């Protein structure tokens, strides 16, 4: 063992990135490359009457002009909802949707030509409020919606005696929340180069989290056999779900290359990235809790109306997740869910970090806080009373294995000095708690056919002793390449410098489904561990051949294989490698991961199943400016159970980044619409949390090894996000006695609430639990 597992190992590609040498899709050039620009719709819902290319065609340098009819085949990330086209066909469904595209010799020529394309529209009724999309719809956004609705997906689930639970409850709490749309805002704008070569192969370099799904979409839309499509993923400048679908512009670049037989580059402007969106869904939800007199939860009811925007994307999953990801970390004996995701004429919503779970989690954790207050209980005590234990099954048949949520809450409570602070800080200051759980990868692969493992890793050892790792897992900055190198180095007992991780190239990388649903460490990590163990067996056999000792006698350590009790028989790694490849000239291995069969047999039973779940408990301390309404978050104690952290440096980075993004949604980020018109498509007007506003974060990694995770690890990419929003909101309540259920908590909204509270009889802190009658 080399000790890389569990160490604070810096990113293996860090030196490349910090010197500017790392190559992102937008940095690449190809000989004879053309540049593309997309003409985007100025209407939100309209029939396309005509597209006039005559003026655009006259611009010097224009090589191709394209409209949607040329390649009308649909695609989409989920096989059941392939409802996107590379450019609009027949009608547009959101303002900013691609209508036409130009390829030209320079960016300037492409832009000039794009401006000269004349599109004539016939406006159709626009739908901006999801409540208007559930019935009485006169012109449907997609014909597939049932009746006179714009419904994309409806889920109804019921487990256990829900009505009885609410009838006989000692306490019920109801929280209705509204949530604005937010977007990933990864710093790298999406970029792609497509090149259709004379060999009849289409090669695409794209900033994507899902090279495999992009590969499938390209083959489908252009009717090419998959082996004639090659997808290469260079460095990706952040994703967070925003690069998690095959995206229309990626297919546009490919189409233009097919038309011109030349490489075509397309880089989105920041404004275009905002219109591409696929961010977190604007949502209205209602959470009802039923509890006994001692605070034991007896029932949970969740309703959600979800604004899907103009296409499906991951929406079917989103609709399930808004419900099913609320069955933990608390024991829920009865559960009912009704979720509806409707199309509107907003840019598409999709998967964004902690997909589908954030908004319900917020309302649920606020409801827990209210329930605790009703009961006269400390909210941490209420949560401790209701936590799921490890090794259990939820009522909707999620298999829970390792679970340190109790340890998380105890650690955050202790480190934050909760007992001295709760309800005891001066007016304007407060402390609050929020918990959560999340999947370590969706148990069901998105594509079922042909059947293949969710992740496969190939190892190839060269005669120089370097180990090259081929994986289709997409490193988007989270550090999956580093984790791959750590796992392989650990198993082989070699320094991490020996390990070279290749970029994703579908010609050489085995399939990994991609970076979404926090699946990579768990699934790719397991595949890598298996590949390395298989390689190790070959090296032990070589050591055995060299020494005459049985192969199982050897253990890897310190760049060598040694046999305990036989110091003379130590074989260094390179010698073992040379022996192993003596007759074949090659030393290779593969490993793969398939998730175990999980979940019930009811409709939708697989949604939310995962081989392992992360758990979390956050405490946040805030300072509310009573004059301006500005919420300052001073410190966050973030206790997280990701099993055994393979690399605490990277886990902390995920937690800190999640807190940044979650605070953004809570405090100010918002895709602001006036009807269907997006008002703030720029980083100047889309207000994220800056370096000066970011709180101090103390990460408490208290998990225990997961039985099935690689070296005991679980996810840490998305689960760290949801708890921060309710932890801060509950702290705000502790500070000023005001509950907020509509986001974001911008200073003007808080200021108005403060003034209203003063008018209504004075602003005061809530009373401490002891002051309540039990």
């Amino acid at each position, binding site marked *: 063992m080399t000790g890389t597992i569990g160490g604070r190992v810096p990113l293996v590609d860090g030196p490349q990135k910090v010197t500017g*040498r790392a190559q992102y899709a937008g940095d690449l050039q190809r000989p004879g490359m053309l540049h593309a620009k997309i003409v985007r719709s100025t209407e939100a819902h309209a029939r396309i009457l005509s597209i006039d290319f005559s003026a655009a065609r006259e611009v010097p340098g224009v090589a191709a002009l394209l409209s949607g009819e040329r390649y009308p085949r649909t695609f989409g990330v989920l096989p059941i909802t392939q409802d996107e086209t590379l450019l609009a066909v027949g009608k547009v469904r959101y303002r900013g949707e691609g209508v036409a595209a130009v390829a030209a010799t320079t960016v300037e020529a492409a832009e000039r030509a794009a401006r000269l394309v004349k599109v004539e529209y016939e406006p159709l009724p626009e739908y901006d409020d999801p409540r208007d999309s559930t019935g009485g719809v006169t012109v449907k956004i997609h014909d597939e919606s049932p009746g006179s609705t714009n419904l994309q997906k409806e889920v109804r689930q019921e487990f256990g005696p829900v009505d009885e639970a609410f009838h006989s409850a000692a306490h019920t709490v109801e929280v209705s929340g509204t949530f604005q749309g937010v977007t990933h805002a990864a*710093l790298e704008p999406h970029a792609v180069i497509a090149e259709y070569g004379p060999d009849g192969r289409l090669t695409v370099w794209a900033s994507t989290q899902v090279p495999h799904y992009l590969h499938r979409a390209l083959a489908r839309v252009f009717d090419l056999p998959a082996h004639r499509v090659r997808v290469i993923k260079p460095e990706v400048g*952040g994703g967070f779900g925003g690069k998690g679908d095959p995206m229309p512009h990626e297919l546009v670049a490919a189409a233009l290359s097919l038309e011109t037989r030349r490489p075509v580059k397309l880089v989105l402007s920041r404004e275009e990235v905002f219109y591409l969106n696929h961010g977190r869904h604007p949502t209205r939800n209602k959470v009802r809790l039923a509890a006994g007199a001692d605070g034991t939860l007896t029932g949970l009811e969740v309703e959600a109306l979800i604004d899907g925007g103009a296409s499906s994307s991951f929406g079917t999953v989103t609709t399930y997740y808004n419900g099913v990801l609320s069955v933990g970390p608390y024991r829920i004996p009865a559960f009912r869910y009704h979720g509806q995701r409707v199309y509107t004429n907003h840019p598409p919503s999709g998967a964004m970090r902690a997909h589908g779970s954030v908004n319900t989690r917020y309302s649920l954790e606020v409801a827990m806080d209210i329930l605790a207050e009703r009961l006269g209980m400390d909210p941490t005590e209420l949560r401790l009373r209701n936590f799921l234990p490890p090794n259990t099954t939820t009522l909707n048949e999620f298999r829970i294995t390792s679970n340190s949520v109790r340890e998380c809450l105890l650690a955050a409570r202790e480190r934050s000095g909760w007992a001295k602070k709760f309800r005891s800080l001066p007016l304007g200051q407060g402390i609050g708690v929020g918990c959560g759980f999340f999947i370590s990868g969706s148990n069901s692969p998105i594509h079922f056919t042909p059947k293949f493992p969710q992740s496969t890793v190939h190892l190839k050892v060269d005669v120089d002793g370097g180990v090259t790792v081929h994986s289709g897992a997409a490193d988007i900055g989270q550090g999956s390449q580093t984790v791959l190198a750590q796992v392989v180095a650990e198993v082989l007992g070699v320094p991490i410098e020996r390990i070279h991780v290749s970029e994703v190239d579908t010609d050489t990388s085995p399939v990994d489904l991609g970076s979404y649903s926090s699946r990579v460490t768990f699934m790719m990590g397991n595949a890598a561990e298996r590949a390395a163990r298989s390689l190790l067996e070959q090296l032990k056999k070589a050591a055995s051949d060299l020494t005459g000792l049985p192969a199982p006698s050897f253990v890897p350590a310190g760049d060598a294989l040694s046999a305990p009790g036989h110091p003379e028989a130590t074989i260094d790694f390179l010698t073992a490698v040379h022996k192993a490849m003596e007759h074949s000239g090659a030393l290779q291995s593969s490993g793969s991961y398939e998730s175990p069969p999980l979940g019930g047999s009811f409709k939708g039973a697989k949604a939310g199943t995962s081989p392992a779940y992360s758990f979390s408990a956050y405490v946040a301390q805030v300072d509310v400016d009573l004059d301006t309404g500005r919420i300052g978050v001073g410190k966050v104690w973030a206790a997280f159970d990701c099993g055994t952290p393979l690399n605490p440096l990277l886990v902390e980075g995920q937690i800190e980044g999640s807190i940044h993004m979650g605070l953004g949604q809570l405090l100010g980020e918002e895709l602001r619409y006036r009807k269907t018109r997006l008002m703030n498509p720029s980083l100047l007007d889309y207000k994220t949390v800056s370096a000066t506003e970011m709180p101090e974060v103390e990460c408490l990694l208290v998990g225990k090894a997961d039985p099935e995770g690689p070296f005991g690890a679980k996810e840490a990419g998305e689960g760290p996000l949801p708890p921060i929003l309710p932890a801060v909101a509950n702290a705000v309540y502790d500070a000023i006695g005001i509950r907020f259920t509509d986001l974001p908590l911008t200073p003007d909204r808080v200021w108005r609430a403060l003034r209203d509270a003063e008018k209504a009889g004075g602003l005061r802190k809530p009373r401490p639990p002891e002051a309540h009658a039990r």
Partner: protein
Amino acid sequence: MKLRVNSLEYDLAVLPHRLLVDLLREDLGLTGTKRGCDDGSCGACTVLVDGKPRHSCLTLGRLVEGKEITTIEGVASGDGLHALQRAFVEKGALQCGFCTPGMVLTALPLLERVSLSEEEVREALAGNFCRCTGYTKIVEAVLSAAKARGRAP
């Protein structure tokens, strides 16, 4: 016009509307300078002009004639990383790496100050957008590099 970039002299024909960011990325192939926003709000395109951080996406190429430009490619000396770059890698101050060039170049002049507090670092980096790290480890890296020079507590 003549231009000095990373201590090398270039003699170039530059159109009046050519932005410095495009000049660096397209004409000189120095793609370490990134484009993230198009309007000066993200700081990814930051380079040093005569030692001062400047948004290259808001600077016309012609305006830097005769000045000394430092891009991320010119920060490391020889084979080794600059101490600030090393601190970024070791402290986990980068994830996707897209903001990193701009962050490093914004932070670099801070190391010249006589003393440097956490607040000053946060203030100086407030115009540089990072979506991955929550800034925590970036601030830590800058302070640790400053501390190594005896400039921070």
